[in-house]
């Protein structure tokens, strides 16, 4: 209904982007080089983090993180659960090929903060399954290495 649809100046675009969840920002990094540089910049990252902690946005992103194995593929997946209803909002595979997480290992979430997740790999379990595969008995040696 309005006559003009002018494109917004950069400082206003930044203020809009601060309201977006990380998944949208990741997608929008390939909009153009300047958006990519902006979203990757330490200044924007700090602002976005602060914004999420101090505004009404807080509840939008609150929730629980769950790690489980998919029955079909036996792969580890992260699921994000809604704060009150515990409804699963999104599920994402743990990118094991990048972090070298062996498929046999048991993984526990120790803690998470600001999008970083600390995982506990139960290496004894891993070693045990490895040994059982090889039929060996060098558990002590493996555990200490």
């Amino acid at each position, binding site marked *: 209904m309005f006559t003009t649809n*002018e494109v917004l100046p950069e400082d206003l675009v930044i203020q809009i982007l601060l309201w977006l969840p990380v998944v949208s920002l990741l997608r929008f990094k390939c909009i153009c080089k300047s958006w990519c540089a902006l979203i990757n910049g330490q200044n924007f990252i700090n602002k976005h983090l602060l914004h999420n902690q101090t505004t009404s946005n807080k509840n939008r992103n609150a929730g629980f993180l769950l790690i489980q194995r998919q029955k079909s593929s036996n792969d580890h997946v992260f699921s994000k659960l809604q704060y009150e209803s515990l409804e699963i909002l999104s599920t994402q595979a743990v990118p094991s090929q990048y972090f070298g997480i062996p498929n046999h290992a048991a993984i526990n979430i120790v803690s998470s903060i600001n999008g970083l997740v600390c995982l506990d790999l139960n290496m004894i379990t891993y070693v045990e399954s490895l040994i059982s595969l090889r039929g060996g008995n060098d558990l002590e040696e493996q555990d200490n290495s």
Partner: protein
Amino acid sequence: MSNTSENPNPSSSSAKITLKTSDNELFEVEEAVAMKFCTVKQYFEDEKDNDVAARGSSTVIPLPNVHSAVLARLISYCKKLPQSNAVADNHEEEETKKKERKQYGTPGDLVDLISAANYLDFKEGLEFFNQALADHIQNKSVEYVRKFFGIKGDFEPHEEEKYREEYAWAFEGVDED
């Protein structure tokens, strides 16, 4: 800043300020509403300081960057302000607020509202409409957002392809354009 719309005795604070938009329409608004726009407030106070004979009701403040259709919506938003700014404390409330934010027009309208709120230095309004626009583009495709903001993609096709593969999960579940 005082709470305007809940005033039990409007006649006591019924000083009006007249705002003149870019298309030469005059809006007579309560002083307390107009004072939410810091640009107007500044102008108004400067006028007072200058001790111009015209005071209060007879002051006309020109807003050459704001169209009447945009100003009407900003004023209507101002009048609802107290409820709108309450913090949502659960998912349902957040959904209700999202719907409320959707009522202020098409995404194109939101761009105009954001520009106007920015020009008027109307902080609460700017936040509200920024959030409304973020709601709108949150699940949109890269192509949609480029078109919306008038941006031309400048990555080499193979660079973009590589990125999309690496972050494939961020490109899932995107809305239709």
